[in-house]
Structure formats: C-alpha cells, structure tokens
C-alpha cells in the first residue's frame, strides 16, 4: 500500500471493510425485490402486503427537494435492497459460531461483544449490514420479561406486538424516505419493556454499513409499556467508501402511560474525504409517540459524521402531562452538510417540551437547524422552551436557523431563542495564556459550548462523544 492510501486510512479510524461474501437481492426496486426480501425473512403475509402497499404509494410520491443540502439524484434502481453475510441463513447461537472475520471487524470498532466487554453492562444487538449478528445479555433481559431482539425475530416470535405497533408512529403514508423504508426495510432492533419494569441496563445497537452500493434500511421499534423505563443507545461507524451510500432508517418509539424512553445517538459515519467525495447520506426518520398520560420521550443526539445528515427526531405529545425533550449537538466540517432539528407536536393537555440544539460548523460545511413547535387548540397549559445556538469557525461555512412556531392555544407558552457567533478572541487568548495550544483551546471551549447536551448522554457515551467532538474539529483552527 502506498503512502497516500495509508494517509487516508489514518484519517478515518474506522475506514476498512470486511471481505465476506454477501447474499444480495437483485439490484433495483420493484415488487419482486420486496417479495424476495419478505420471502428470505420468512415473513407473514400481512407484512408483505403492508410492504407492497407502501411500495404502491412510493411509486406516486415525489422525492422532497425543499431541504438545504442538495445532493446528486439517487438512482433507486441501482441499489441493492438486501444483502446479508452468506453464512447467516442459519443464525449462530454462540459467539464462537460467528465468522472470525466479522468478530475481527467488531474488535477494530471496539464493540463489546466478547466476555470481557460484558462487564461494561451493555447488551448489544449488533447489526452487520442488514442482519442481526448476535444478541447478548438475553438471559438478564428475559428474566425481566424484556424483549430485545432483531425486528425480523420479533416478527416471528412476537407477531402480535409487531402488528399492533409497527407503523403507528411512522405510517406507510408518510414522506418519501419513510415510505421507502416501510417497503424495503431489512432489519433493525425491537424492544418491548413490560408494564412496570425499569430496564436494568442501557440497551445498545451498533449499526454498521459494509457492502458497497447497499442502502441501509433499518427499522427500529421500541415500546415502553405502562410505568416502564428504558434507555437506548445507538452508535454508528461505517467503513470508508468512495460512492455515496444511502441510509434511510425509521425509528418508532411508543411510550404508554407513565413510561419513559431515553434514546441516545452518536452518529459517526464516514463523512467523505476532504474534498467532499464519498460519505454517507443519512436520511433518517425518527419519531416518538407519547401515547399515554405522564409519559416522556427524550432524544439526545451527537451528529458528527455523514456527508449529509437530514433528520428531525420528533415527539408527538398525545397523552396529557407528557413530556418531550430534544438535545442535540451537530458538528460539520469540510464539505459536510446537516439539516437537522426536531418537531414537538403538542396535542394533550399540560404537555411540556424542551429543545436544546448546539450546532458547530467549520471548514466549508453547512449546517441548518430546522424545527417545529406546534401547540394545537386542545393542548391547554402547554409549554415549550427552545434554545438553539450556532458556532461558526471560519468564514467559508454557514449556519442557519429556521424554526417554525405555531401557537394555537391561548393558555400555552412558547419561548424560542437563538444565537449565532464565533469563538471569542478573549476566551481563546485566556486558554492559550494558560498553556493550551490553539487546537486544545478550541476543543475546550467547544466542549463547554456543548456541555448542556453532553450531560444528557449516558456515561459510556459521554466520554466517547466528548472525544468525538474534539476529533471532528481537528484541523479546523487557524
């Protein structure tokens, strides 16, 4: 390998791909491919019909074009919609059964699959391309009656639950990418927390995009039954690819009476190289429904990767006294583009929502906060507080704030504030005076700027995220 290639690999720690033969559905998007996916996953008829219905609608839908980050047109017929490591038709029961190459990949990624890592107390449902690799900590979870498995397994083993909740938050009649996902989703996680159970550990999924030309279409469904609590972590790293890859996942959260779901994401997919070549398109639909009264859904996200991030984790506050929260850090560098934010839809009485968004853009990147706060006429006594701050580093990047605020109830209050600024010379000077070099000083100040959000992350993630913030901004000073 010549020096130049080595440099590229050095730049992106997770830039490698494992050579495993894949089973692929034929290229292209049509009914046959959907039937192929459904068939290979041994799905019941209702699910196939559901997929086909979504596909039928997809054919008449138009791809949205109102967003700020523009991208070259995606040829949906030129993608593989299903690809699975070959020896996964029969799922391994033990870790030892796994392809050694795969285990090696995870080791490089630092995913706690093996015994020693178990001490970290994280149960992992690792997704390699489209099929769940292995699920650990099953026993502990089973004892509490918690179901944590891949969604294809859930379709087989818990069809009633899946049938009852799938598509209730993101219906097949939703926007383009969500509908695309409904038609062709391959795998993802399924979580069910029974009534009154407080999940004893953080649940976590690592997504990994591997095979070239494969769009990833995960579907995650989390249901917290009455009075339960769950904290769910999602972390992503992807191997280096030259072509742009599409990732259109759907995440549905449902919180019933008195339940709480905390969903944290650290997203560090391949952002493309310095010239903006390659990188992942992250077009994800995440939506939570506070269905019962006194329920709570909280989104925390740290977005540092992807060439284009385009997502709005949302809360529908349907139950009375329900609470929605959104904490976000989005960092863009080089040619990255992000259009992210949240939607808080207040339907129930006494509902509360809070939005804290921190955006940092450096290099030639472009970042947009786009959010909606909508208080409906029946949402008496509701409250929203929004704060979005942007930090600009360099004069070739952009930072934009586009909030939509709709108040239709006279007993409800909405407060929104936003600022845009750069790192002050005084602060930099002060830090440097104390012996920090400019890069460290910026790292420190940025971490302070993000602190409000970083605090919301579970311990294991907080440390990782803090490092990630520093790494993402490397080379943006000066």
């Amino acid at each position: 390998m010549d020096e130049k290639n080595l440099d590229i690999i050095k730049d992106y720690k997770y830039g490698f791909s494992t050579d495993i033969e894949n089973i692929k559905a034929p290229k292209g998007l049509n009914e046959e491919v959907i039937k192929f996916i459904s068939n290979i996953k041994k799905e019941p008829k209702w699910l196939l019909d559901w997929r086909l219905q979504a596909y039928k609608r997809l054919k008449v839908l138009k791809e949205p074009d109102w967003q700020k980050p523009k991208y070259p047109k995606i040829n949906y017929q030129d993608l593989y919609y299903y690809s699975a490591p070959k020896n996964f038709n029969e799922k391994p029961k033990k870790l030892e059964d796994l392809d050694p190459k795969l285990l090696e990949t995870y080791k490089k990624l630092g995913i706690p699959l093996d015994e020693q890592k178990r001490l970290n107390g994280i149960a992992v449902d690792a997704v390699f391309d489209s099929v769940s690799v292995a699920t650990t900590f099953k026993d502990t979870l089973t004892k509490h009656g918690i179901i944590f498995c891949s969604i294809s397994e859930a379709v087989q083993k818990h069809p009633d639950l899946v049938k009852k909740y799938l598509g209730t938050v993101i219906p097949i009649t939703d926007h383009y990418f969500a509908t695309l996902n409904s038609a062709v989703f391959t795998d993802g996680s399924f979580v069910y927390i029974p009534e009154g159970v407080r999940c004893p550990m953080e649940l976590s999924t690592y997504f990994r995009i591997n095979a070239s030309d494969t769009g990833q279409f995960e579907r995650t469904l989390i249901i917290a039954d009455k009075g339960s609590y769950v904290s769910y972590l999602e972390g992503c790293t992807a191997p280096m690819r030259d072509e742009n890859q599409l990732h259109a996942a759907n995440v549905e959260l449902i919180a019933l009476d008195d339940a709480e779901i905390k969903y944290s994401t650290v997203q560090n997919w391949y952002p493309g190289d310095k010239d903006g070549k390659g990188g992942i398109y992250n077009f994800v639909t995440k939506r939570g429904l506070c269905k019962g009264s006194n329920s709570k859904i909280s989104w925390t996200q740290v977005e540092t990767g992807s060439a284009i991030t385009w997502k709005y984790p949302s809360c529908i506050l349907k139950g009375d006294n329900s609470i929605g929260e959104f904490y976000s850090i989005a960092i863009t560098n080089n040619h990255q583009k992000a259009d992210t934010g949240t939607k808080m839809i207040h339907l129930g009485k006494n509902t509360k929502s809070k939005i804290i968004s921190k955006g940092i853009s450096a290099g030639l990147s472009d970042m947009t906060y786009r959010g909606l706060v909508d208080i409906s006429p029946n949402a008496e006594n509701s409250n929203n507080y929004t704060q979005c701050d942007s930090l600009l580093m360099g004069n070739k990047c952009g930072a934009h704030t586009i909030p939509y605020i709709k108040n239709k109830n006279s007993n409800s209050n909405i407060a929104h504030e936003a600022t845009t600024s750069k790192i002050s010379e005084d602060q930099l000077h002060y830090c440097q005076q104390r012996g920090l070099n400019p890069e460290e000083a910026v790292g420190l100040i940025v971490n302070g700027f993000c602190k409000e959000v970083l605090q919301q992350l579970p311990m294991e993630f907080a440390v990782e995220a803090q490092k990630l913030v520093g790494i993402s901004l490397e080379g943006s000073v000066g």
Partner: protein
Amino acid sequence: MENKIKIDFDKTFKNYSSNDELDFKKNNLENFIKEGLPGRKLESWKFSDLNQIINKNIGELNFYIDQSKENLIDNALIIKDFDHNKIVFINGKVEELDFSFEDKDKVKILKEFDMSIKIKSKNSLLNLNNAFCKNFYKINISKNYTMNKPLIIYHVSTNNISSTTLNSQLNFILEENSSLKIVDIYEDKSEKNFINTFYNFILKENAILKNFKIDKLQNSNIKYSYNNIDQLKNSVSETFILSNGSKFLKNEINCNLNGQYSSAFINGVFSLDADKHHEIRTSVNHLVENTKSYQLIKSVLDDKSKSVYQGKIYVSPNAQKTDGYQLSKCILLDKNTEFNAKPELEIYADDVKCSHGSASGSLNENSIFYLRSRGLNYKQAKKLLISGFFLDVIEKITDEEIKSFIKKTMELNQ
C-alpha cells in the same frame, strides 16, 4: 381567470401603442398567469394562503377599473392640524401629488417609464402589479435636501367598486444626504377588494428614510404591500407597521444593505380581533461588512384572529461584523387565536452577532394580580398591560411628531 384577465388587460390598455412599457406589461401578465395567485405551496405563503383567502372572501376578481374620470378627493379624509405633503391614491389611481411645503427644484416627480429602477423579485404579485399599474411614478429627493414636512400617502378606495384588484406602485430615490418621512394611511370605503401596493426605495449614501404604515380603519379588504429598500453606505431606514384594520394584510419588507455602516430598523405591531389574519414578512440581507439590523414585532390577538411573522436575516460570506437582531412576541387573549412565527437566520460569515427570539403565550396572571391588588379592575389591568406591551415598540419610533400621532390613533395612554 385566464381569459378574464386577458380581456381586462386589453380593455385597460386599449389606447396604448406598442412600446417598451407595453411589452414589459405583457411579459409580466404572462408571468402572472403562469404563476397565479400565491398559495400555501410557496414557502413564503405557507401560513397565509392568499389564493384561498381571495376565493373565500372575494370570489372572482376583476382586473379592469374605469379610471377615465377624475375622482373627487373627500376633504374629510385629509388629516387636519398636521402640516404635510400628500399623495392621494383613489382606487389605485394617483389623483393628487402635492409637495407644496417643499422646494420645487429639490423634489422631482417623473412619470416616464424607467426600466432601471424596477424591483427585481420573483413574485407573482409584483408581476400583477407591473402589468396593471398605470403610472410608475418616480420621486427623486435631491442631494442634501431634508424634507420640511412629512409626506402622507392616502390610499383611498370608494364604495362603488367591488371584487377588484387595485394595483399601485411608487419609486423613491433618495440622493446623498437627503431625508424623507412617509406615512401611509389607508382610508377604505370599499369592501372586498384586493389592494396590491409596491414601493421601491433607493437610498444613496447617508440618506435617511422613515416609513410608517398605518392600517387602522376597519374594512373587509384583502391587502398586500411590499417595500423594497436598497441601501448604500451610511444610510438608515426605519419602517414601522401598524397592522389592525383590514380583513387580511400582508406587509413584506425586503431590505438590501449594500453599503457599509448602513442600518435597517423594522418595528411592527399587530392588534387584531374579529377573524382577521395579518402577516409581516421581512427579509434583511446583510451583503457587506459592518451593517446592522433590528426587528421588533409585537402582537396581541383576540377573537379568532391570526397573526404571522416570518423574519429572515441573511448574512453573506463577506458581511463580517454584522449585527442582526429579531424579536417577536405575542399575547393570545382568546382561545381560538393563532400565532405563527418563522424567525430565520441564514448565516455564511463567522464574525457576526446574530440572534433572534420569539415568545408567545397568555397575559401574565401575576401582573394582572399585581395591578388588581393596586385597585384596578380586570379590564383596566388588562388594558394597561397591553398598552405597555405595545408602547415598547411605539417608543422605538424616532420621530416625535409621528410617534405622538400614532399613540393618538392607537388610543394608547402615556
């Protein structure tokens, strides 16, 4: 609509011989026919679907209006005890241009068609206006001249027209060091018409423009007003909007800060009731270094009314040291009221100070309680709080004479 508008166009301009102006009008007409009235599919009309509003309140529009005979100016409408210059529009036609308080050589009024000062904006209502506006007046304030008295522009409509669009347009050029104060007053006797007004201002170095738009008289017309302001070095523009009387009113302010140290101030007040729907949309473009903008919009809504504020601050990559500020506040008094806001920042330069805030909610119960414990009844307490809320904006007006005039019209006690 397509046939009707073409017939009305030919009828209106049958005496015109073919020339640049007519070609320009025809082009604009074609564009308007292609685009139609703006609806909610357009981002800038997302919260106020004009097409729907006109369909619901007016029905089919007429575009022809007989302007052959002169309308008499009703003297009762003219404001007394207040010396001023005036321009009087009656049903969209200029009936009087009176600058008697000014030096004749210093204020020039030109009627010639001038392509160079046309507003450049993709807006189907501008196309409609360009197509049907009969005279594109150009008013030029000479170098170093400060107007002695304010200019009041009366927009009068008479009760014998209905379902008609009235298009008017004025262009103002403020030469270096000049200054102009304009007060817009709407005097509507008509009902159910669509009134479409465009102003274009060009502010040369050090020029000062103050524009006060007062919509007080209760009426059932649908109105759209657009101000384009181009500013050069050191120029200052101040716009104040009182949005109160019409059934529907959308004020749009587009301000281009093209010169260093130029600044723009936009303040607005919505005081709405009875099913009214008003909007202010601003777009302040900071295009060079060291420019400043300030926006303050307050709104009080009662009885099924709806107000919308869409404000945008754009900072171009070379507009370092920009100072931009936006604040919108709203008090919702009634259950069925609605406040929508879209305060937007689009920033491409790093050494800037830009912020916005937006708050909406009910009257503060604690404040009411405080006032009642001091012996005021609920009604008085509410009134006092609302006037205080509005006065915050009114006090920003830099012209004392006009400030007290506006306070008087709004019946705000000191």
